């Protein structure tokens, strides 16, 4: 049976990264093919196309060819999402193929990912792109990263070569503070260690890429310590049978919620207690669940407010220091006025100062650049017209993240991750 068990299978979100020709399309095609996700007509299509191109093998990279064709036509492509499923897990893959816009696209794909799969060409080892991808993974606080050292067939499946690259990667991981880095020697073209094990590298005793993805422990990744609940929508039926019903609907952004929990409403500071939780089995809500919380008291709560643990509340901030990825073609300068959307609250803010921008080749900070351009990663100080209730992004991805919106065009022009707030 290929359909995953309803209750026990988890959703794993991954993002793939690699520079052009590292074999990313081939790897994704191989994953889909060897896990038997390919529909018959898709397979016939790529078999034909491979023959027409004179290959004596089926070019699995063609499975993601729609995007490539567009790239050749010069259409902007950013992130494509694909799903596949094995008996153990349901996977969702974000693939960011563009290279010009690479940073922006990878930041977007990585923002929702649990695992990053970064390709390294075994012949080239760790290159500038590898550092760039790893930096983004660390900045976005992905809990897990897998380096697939690809094209092992072109280095005679040599253990020494893999060990050498693995050492460099371990050093890079330590420098960046990556949480859980794994290295796997593969050949996407031949299918070695992607889904199936191989005889070509008897010296490698670890899991294949798929085995690893199927067993990555996700339970510890969400913040279950700090109760956070951004109110998204107030449910008031105003019908006779539910006359007094007043529920606060939203998605749990941290902690485990139970009836009887003490609550502080922020930014007002009003206090109450959870009287019921609708939409959660057993009356207990965990991170990422969309539920409706009811309170014992008739306090004033509306969209944009945050319910939290009074003993462990977030900072109600008027000033923020954040890492920012600039995503607009139009550069931004010190003092610019923007909107920040954080959880369910949108406020006006001023970029008080662009503190630094990172030089992606050396990973060193350039202080006081005065402006940021498309794909720049930097540190920015914001002043807020109204307060936001934030946590450091490193502590909570849900309450530490925000997007930057252009008031005039409504475009999303940046992504931010809170470092510090007051």
């Amino acid at each position, binding site marked *: 049976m290929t359909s995953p068990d309803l209750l026990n299978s988890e959703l794993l979100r991954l993002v793939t990264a690699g520079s052009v020709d590292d074999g990313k399309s081939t790897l994704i095609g191989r994953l889909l093919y060897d896990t038997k996700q390919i529909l018959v007509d898709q*397979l016939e299509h790529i078999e034909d196309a491979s023959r027409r191109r004179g290959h004596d093998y089926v070019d699995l990279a063609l499975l993601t060819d729609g995007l490539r064709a567009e790239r050749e036509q010069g259409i902007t492509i950013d992130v494509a999402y694909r799903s596949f499923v094995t008996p153990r897990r349901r996977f969702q893959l974000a693939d960011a193929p563009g290279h010009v816009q690479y940073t922006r696209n990878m930041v977007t794909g990585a923002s929702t990912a649990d695992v990053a799969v970064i390709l390294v060409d075994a012949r080239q080892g760790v290159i500038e792109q590898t550092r760039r991808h790893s930096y983004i993974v660390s900045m976005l606080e992905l809990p897990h990263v897998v380096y697939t050292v690809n094209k092992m067939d072109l280095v005679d499946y040599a253990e020494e070569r893999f060990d050498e690259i693995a050492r460099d990667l371990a050093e890079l991981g330590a420098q960046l503070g990556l949480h859980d880095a794994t290295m796997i020697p593969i050949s996407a073209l031949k299918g070695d260690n992607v889904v199936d094990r191989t005889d070509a590298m008897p010296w490698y005793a670890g899991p294949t890429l798929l085995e690893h993805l199927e067993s990555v422990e996700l339970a510890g990744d969400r913040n279950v310590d700090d109760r956070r609940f951004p109110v998204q929508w107030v449910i008031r039926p105003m019908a006779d049978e539910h006359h007094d*019903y007043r529920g606060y609907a939203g998605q749990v952004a941290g902690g485990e919620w139970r009836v009887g929990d003490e609550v502080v409403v922020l930014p007002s500071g009003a206090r109450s207690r959870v009287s019921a939780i609708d939409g959660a089995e057993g009356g207990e809500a965990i991170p990422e669940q969309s539920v409706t919380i009811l309170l014992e008291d008739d306090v004033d709560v509306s969209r944009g407010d945050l319910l939290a643990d009074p003993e462990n509340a977030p900072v109600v901030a008027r000033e923020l220091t954040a890492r920012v990825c600039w995503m607009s073609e139009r550069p931004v300068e010190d003092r610019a006025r923007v909107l920040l959307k*954080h*959880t369910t609250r949108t406020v006006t803010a001023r970029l008080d100062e662009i503190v630094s921008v990172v030089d992606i080749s050396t990973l060193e900070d350039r202080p006081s650049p005065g402006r940021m351009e498309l794909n720049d990663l930097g540190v920015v100080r914001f002043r807020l017209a109204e307060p936001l209730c934030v946590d450091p992004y490193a502590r909570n991805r849900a309450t530490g993240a925000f997007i930057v919106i252009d008031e005039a065009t409504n475009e999303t022009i940046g992504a931010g991750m809170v470092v510090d707030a007051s």
Partner: protein
Amino acid sequence: MSVTRRTLSHLDALEAEAIHIMREVAAERERPVLLFSGGKDSIVMLRLAEKAFRPAKFPFPVMHVDTGHNFPEVIEFRDRRVAELNERLVVASVQESIDKGRVVEQTGPRASRNQLQTTTLLDAIEEHGFDAAMGGARRDEERARAKERIFSFRDDFGQWNPRAQRPELWNLYNARIRKGEHIRVFPISNWTELDVWQYIAHENLELPKIYFAHEREVFRRDGMIYAASDFVERFPDEELFRATVRFRTVGDMSCTGGVMSDAATLEEVVTEIAATRVTERGETRADDRVSEAAMEDRKRVGYF
């Protein structure tokens, strides 16, 4: 940090995401609408809307773009379901667009009202002043959709510009628009066909009968099976015969092909879909049923 052993199942995670999206639309847009075709995806959307907003009523009406050539079973189901939910139904009629001369009806055996739906939909959006239309389209349906955003912007002419999409990060959706513009929102973008079926089974949702194997009059065209109906003209060599079929989608009768199938229960359909998705490395390529189903995926053209 302490560690909990409980995580959400994949269906719970997809459900939570979709509910979050619907609530964002309700909160950030003034006049949203939920598009409903009577098909399995929109039936899932209705259940998600219940979970997002009950015990209150939906903060938006439900709208069906009726080609006038729908399966009668589906129209009956639509009216009953919306009445049970006690929600407001808006019907935008392609027949009316034809009568008003907004669109021209095609003729002949290959005539279809499928393309005409777009005009009817855009007219209805304008007439009612809707600024956000939620639909049940999924990214696994076609390649172009794989890179369409969950919040997808349409200009004053209802056009989608793939070059000007907004980046979507975390669960922070930017729903801001200017006057005259509207957004299409796809809360179940990340679901697959199999997820939809599993969810239907899990929630025990009722579906129109045509989704399950049943005997009816059909004919063959281009290797596909179509239901006989007054709306579809046949070529002289297209003979009617009786067969046991089920439909994977419930669009306009003129362009909705069925598959030969004995799957008469939800469980049997889920098993069959799982098998269809995961063909044995092309070795079962000659399997008619599978390739027919795949073909239908390609043929599927919606007003979305």
